[in-house]
């Protein structure tokens, strides 16, 4: 356990190892660690940025969505209004048409009735004349009493 020159030997060895560590061992390790630290910090920042932009996108999406929904609702309303308008218009047209048809039908009927009346009158007058002839004999001349006959017919 005696102190001897080993002490100086160890001192020299110690200094040399410190120097080697200082020059060649420490710097590359620290460099790697620092670079990784930086990368991790960058990565975290990028992640935060991405998060923010995602939020922004979500917000924009929500806005667009709401806008689209509102538009759709508006369109639907317009369509509904238009549809009911069409129905109203159609109903009105149909009413007019129906009335027209009704009018023309009643006109036709009236015509037919008049025609039938006329026919009936003529037939009646003819029948009256015939009956009168039969009663009066040949006294009544058709040509002669044409005027009287027409008068009678018109009075029927």
């Amino acid at each position, binding site marked *: *356990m005696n*102190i*001897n*020159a*080993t*002490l*100086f*030997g*160890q*001192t020299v*060895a*110690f*200094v040399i*190892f*410190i120097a*080697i*560590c*200082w020059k*060649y*061992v*420490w710097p*590359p*390790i*620290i460099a*790697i*660690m620092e*670079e*990784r630290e*930086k*990368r991790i910090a960058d990565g975290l920042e990028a992640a935060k940025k991405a998060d923010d932009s995602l939020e922004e996108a979500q917000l924009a999406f929500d806005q667009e969505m709401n806008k689209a929904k509102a538009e759709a609702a508006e369109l639907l309303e317009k369509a509904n209004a238009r549809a009911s308008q069409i129905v109203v218009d159609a109903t009105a047209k149909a009413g007019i048409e129906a009335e027209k048809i009704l009018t023309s039908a009643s006109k036709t009927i009236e015509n037919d009735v008049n025609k039938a009346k006329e026919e009936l009158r003529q037939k009646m007058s003819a029948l009256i004349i015939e009956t009168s002839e039969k009663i009066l004999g040949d006294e009544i001349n058709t040509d002669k009493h044409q005027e009287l006959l027409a008068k009678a017919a018109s009075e029927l």
Partner: protein
Amino acid sequence: MASEAHEPITSQEYIQHHLTNLVCGKTESHGWTCDPHYSEEMGFWAFHVDSLGWSIFLGILFIGLFRWGLPKLASASEAPTGLQNFIEMCVEFVNENVQSIFTSAKNNLIGPMALTVLVWVFLMNLMDLIPVDYLPELAKGVGLEYFKVVPTTDPNITLGMALAVFILIIFYSIKIKGLKGFLAELTLHPFGKYLMPVNLVLEGVNLIAKPISLGLRLFGNLYAGEMIFILIALMLTFSSISVGLLGVGLHLIWALFHILILALQAFIFMVLTIVYLAMAHETQDH
């Protein structure tokens, strides 16, 4: 076992054998020699080849591990794995300690130095866990009579490192404060300039105590641990199975406990080194 069949040795001889270094030095009669018979003659100019050898080997192991332990193309983009993880963990641990202690000044030598101290001292301490007879017996196989394995149980090694720290303390004290500032620090505290000699004695003791306590603390802890390992190993030389088994159990328990001491002492050596150098960097009066 150190005991050989043809010449049984006593317990005292066994312990003595384990505490003797392989020493090479200069003798009057034979010049430079590694013959243990002349170790008395060598005086100061002798080297503990085993302590120094192991210490340098472990230093190179440290450098190799931390320099070439990183993958060839270690890049920051890939997650570290395995050894790189371990290396970065060590470096980060050291860096954190340095930064927490070295708050006022910046010195990029401190980090590498602290890392060297921590890992190197830990590796040297770790040799203590190798059963005390394995390597000396191997050495005996190649003809080396004495062979001490744990460098930190040699006061030369621990005080040698403490001396380097001491030199750095003085170097940085003078570099940062100037020679005048350093001398002022030594002579003008704590009692003012009229009691300069008293101050010098007090501060001088304070200064000298740093490396001595630093070196002896490590040496003392490791030497005591080693001694207990030797005593436990001695139990195995008795021709009694029960004592031998007890010895194995004790060895296991002590080794497990000793792991804590090894790491702790390496850590303490590192922290004190950083603290002493931080104090050397402090310029304000205290």
